[in-house]
């Protein structure tokens, strides 16, 4: 059944524009209603066909709709035609479809300038170019229109030009009609140096051209110029091109750079041409504008509608990508176009990282952005807010503690809140306890909210982090405490037990961490704490499933520590031994095991929640900045004393070992379990 929408005359232009935006993915701002679809916006006939299909569907338009070609030149003219149609037909949804109106989709010539220039700035459309590219051949071999004089050889100039043009067509995928021989490759056709390099590579392959050729740079600006330059080399291959060589333009001076090398060179990243393109690409990435639209000389504000904050975003990305200084010598006027910005930044990119700073205005006064960039000396000199609040060092910090409705997680949440952090309490099975934890924190003068959901459920994870983002916009600490798993002997465990444990402990950690990192980036960094168990390195009764997934947690912790370091995020794992509490009491044979564990410690007691919370607090502080990727065991010495094997098992192993040693009398270095 059709879901056609009624056409509303009043906002038809906007509606049509929205459809164009949806189909082309161009920002609406770019889609100037009066701009030529082809010449200004670079929307070709096929794309226009897509738009029409959507319009037809959206408004239930008949295929027989009369839309003259000239009415299809701009969004406004299309909207006008639709408007007229609607006015003439009081209801626009009933005409049967007969055939696709092929007239409407293209003008048959399909000239697209490839640059998608906005109008109003005198940009040309790629057609009817005057030959401003130095191709006025003094030798009379080629006229200004690219035609070959009469009497051309079998392998004519025109043939070769067409072949070169075909190569351009293949590589760029532009319709051949667009590839006007005398159009400027860069300015009219939007063919950049890298794309030109691709073309050269194909030409080199196709005609067996040498890697080094003496081609004047100025001849490489048009297809005609390139064809003319290459013809000399091609003509020397009589087997392929039996015609006599036609004369070429005067050879370039020896001092000129080797032609074709510049655009196709596998050069360092920071070649000037490359850098300009990279800056443009970053603009495209941040603004989501099609790169063709981002004409280097267009005014950012007036032609492209890029405002100052958006420009700030671009600068932030540029700064990060190229480690650019916070302060540089660039006048305001240089910030008006992509081209001038690239030019202003270029010398800082080409200079060694520290080299570009000495000659800039002394405006920073020791300030730094705190991320290791910039002048480098300042941030520590400014007392941060948190330092002024001695007893609440985490004031202003946002902390997520998963599984914090009860037990250890709850204590961590309460403790961090007592240090000033705003805590996101997360619970799933213990929803009421989660609410209760929040109330307790608030009652104690702290700040907390409850984000219910399971870390093992992707949708819940999404919701939890959306809530954090909407509420706080960022995150400083993520304590991954949520856990799930079965205690039991291996023979009693099923695949489902392992899957469940893995999904919560490992996949849940991974998914939450990724989202946490995104929020931490906004805060300039952050800290992630994971929780494991020393038992994953040995044997503990009934812990086979949990030990396995905790081993994975430790491994994941180390990977995250390295991969997230670039965002100034430290990741550490605390591996506490048994912790007194309700969970420990649920352990099979808990009475026996607790007694054994207590006996194995050096302090005759197991951990309490606050032991772990305090240590988490330390790891989250700036004092622990150098900890990352660490797995820190806190078990009162149990694992040292037992070497990772629980009491009864250790006794058995020791007995076996003693027996083996005594019977076989071999010097096998068995672990020291005693």
């Amino acid at each position, binding site marked *: 059944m059709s879901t056609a929408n009624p056409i509303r005359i009043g906002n038809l232009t906007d509606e049509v524009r929205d459809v164009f935006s949806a189909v082309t993915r161009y920002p609406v*701002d*770019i889609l100037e209603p009066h701009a030529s679809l082809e010449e200004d916006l670079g929307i070709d006939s096929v794309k226009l066909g897509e738009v029409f299909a959507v319009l037809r569907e959206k408004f239930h338009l008949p295929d027989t709709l009369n839309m003259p070609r000239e009415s299809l030149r701009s969004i406004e003219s299309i909207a006008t035609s639709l408007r007229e149609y609607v006015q003439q037909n009081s209801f626009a949804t009933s005409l049967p479809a007969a055939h696709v109106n092929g007239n409407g989709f293209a003008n048959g010539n399909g000239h697209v300038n490839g640059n998608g220039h*906005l*109008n*109003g*700035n005198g940009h040309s459309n790629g057609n009817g170019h005057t030959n401003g590219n130095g191709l006025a051949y003094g030798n009379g071999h080629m006229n200004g229109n690219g035609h070959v004089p009469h009497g051309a050889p079998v392998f004519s100039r025109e043939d070769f030009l067409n072949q070169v043009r075909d190569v351009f067509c293949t590589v760029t995928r532009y319709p051949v009609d667009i590839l006007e021989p005398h159009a400027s490759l860069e300015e009219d056709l939007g063919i950049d140096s890298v794309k030109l390099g691709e073309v050269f590579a194909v030409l080199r392959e196709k005609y067996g051209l040498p890697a080094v050729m003496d081609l004047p740079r100025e001849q490489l600006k048009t297809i005609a110029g390139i064809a003319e330059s290459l013809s000399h080399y091609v003509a020397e291959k009589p087997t392929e091109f039996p015609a006599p060589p036609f004369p070429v333009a005067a050879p370039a001076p020896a001092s000129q750079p080797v032609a074709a090398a510049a655009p196709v060179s596998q050069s360092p990243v920071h070649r000037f041409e490359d850098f300009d393109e990279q800056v443009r690409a970053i603009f495209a990435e*941040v603004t989501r504008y099609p790169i063709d639209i981002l004409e280097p000389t267009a005014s950012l*504000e*007036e*032609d492209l*509608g890029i405002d*100052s*904050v958006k*420009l*700030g*975003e671009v*600068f*932030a*990305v540029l*700064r*990060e990508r190229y480690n650019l200084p*916070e*302060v*540089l010598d*660039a*006048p*305001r*006027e*240089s*910030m008006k176009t992509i081209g001038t910005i690239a030019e*202003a930044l270029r010398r800082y990119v080409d200079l060694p990282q520290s080299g570009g700073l000495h000659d800039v*205005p002394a*405006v*920073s*006064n020791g*300030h730094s*952005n*705190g*991320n290791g960039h*910039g002048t480098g000396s300042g*941030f520590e000199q*400014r007392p*941060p*807010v*948190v330092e002024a609040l001695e007893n609440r060092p985490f*004031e*202003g*910090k*946002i902390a997520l503690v998963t599984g914090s409705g009860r037990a250890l997680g709850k204590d961590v949440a309460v403790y961090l809140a007592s240090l000033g952090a*705003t805590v996101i309490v997360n619970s799933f099975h213990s929803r009421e306890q989660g609410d209760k934890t929040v109330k307790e924190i608030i009652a104690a003068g702290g*700040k907390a909210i409850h984000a219910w959901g399971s870390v093992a459920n992707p949708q819940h994870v999404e919701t939890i982090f959306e809530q954090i983002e909407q509420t*706080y*916009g*960022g995150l*400083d600490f993520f304590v991954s405490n949520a856990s799930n798993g079965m205690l039991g002997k291996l023979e009693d465990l099923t695949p489902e037990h392992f899957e469940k444990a893995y999904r919560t402990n490992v996949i849940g950690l991974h998914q939450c961490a990724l989202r946490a990192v995104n929020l931490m*980036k*906004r*805060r*300039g*960094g952050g800290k992630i704490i994971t929780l494991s168990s020393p038992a994953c390195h040995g044997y503990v009764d009934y812990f086979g499933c949990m030990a396995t997934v905790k081993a994975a947690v430790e491994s994941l912790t180390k990977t995250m520590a390295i991969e997230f370091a670039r965002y100034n995020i430290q990741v550490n794992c605390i591996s506490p031994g048994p912790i007194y509490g309700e969970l420990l009491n649920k352990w099979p044979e808990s009475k026996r095991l607790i007694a054994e564990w207590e006996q194995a410690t050096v302090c005759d007691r197991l951990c309490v929640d606050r032991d772990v919370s305090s240590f988490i607090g330390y790891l989250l502080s700036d004092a622990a900045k150098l900890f990352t990727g660490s797995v820190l065991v806190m078990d009162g010495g149990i694992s040292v004393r037992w070497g990772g094997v629980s009491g009864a098992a250790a006794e058995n192993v020791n007995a076996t070992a003693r027996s083996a040693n005594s019977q076989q009398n071999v010097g096998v270095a068995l672990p020291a379990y005693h």
Partner: protein
Amino acid sequence: MATKHDLSLVAALDSAEITAEIQTSYLRETEVQEAATIANQRRREEWVAGRIAAKYAFLDGEGFHESAGLGELYVRKLNIADLASFSSDAYRSVSVIRDRAPGGGPARVGWSSGSDTVQVAISHSAGYSCASLGTAGVCSLDLETPVQRVPEFYLQTFTHRERDWVGACAGAHGLNPEWLYTLLWSARECLLKTPRFTDLSLWHMPALEIDIPDGAERLVRIHDSKDLSGSFEFLQASTFRGAFRLAVAGSPNLILTAITEND
């Protein structure tokens, strides 16, 4: 000494209010032509709205309409009826002149027939334009829209201290962090428009750390304001070149900051 143009009105105009008729009847022909050279439609509409808002502010000052008293900065969101307070001839009799020279000063506004002009600050965002004038009034204005930005933006543009401030304000007062980050950006941009910072450009934003030690709770009223109209909140702020008083107005979707020359 204060002049009649020291009235501290910021005229805010939504470009959606401007019909084609208003545009052609309120702008001078040269202004219409200049607008036509702006390729981007939104920007063009904002430009037109900015010109009309500036003219309105000038005409309002000339007539001492609804004086709020010296030193009391307030923003008035203009509607069709407000615009109609003055005739189209009056609008066309006023010119806004932009200093196009590199590093040129702020725009000025005055009677087209006369040589006396006054400085005008204009800013625009999301289809809105704001204008204020006066030699002792608003020195710079900046209007921004709080939206989510790329992650690098927060990391690279704002210092730890600013991020802490945003976190603390968001947590303590329920303010939208994007709104707060945009406020910090807007304050920076406002500074760039003042004579003290002409040597810096947008690139230098990270060096312009804004410290707002207290008063954040007063932002709640602005943050929750229904629309752009109303009085400003003033916050004492500082950057590495010293202290300044930051005026903030806005709504959940817009932030308007102002710095006055007297500060």
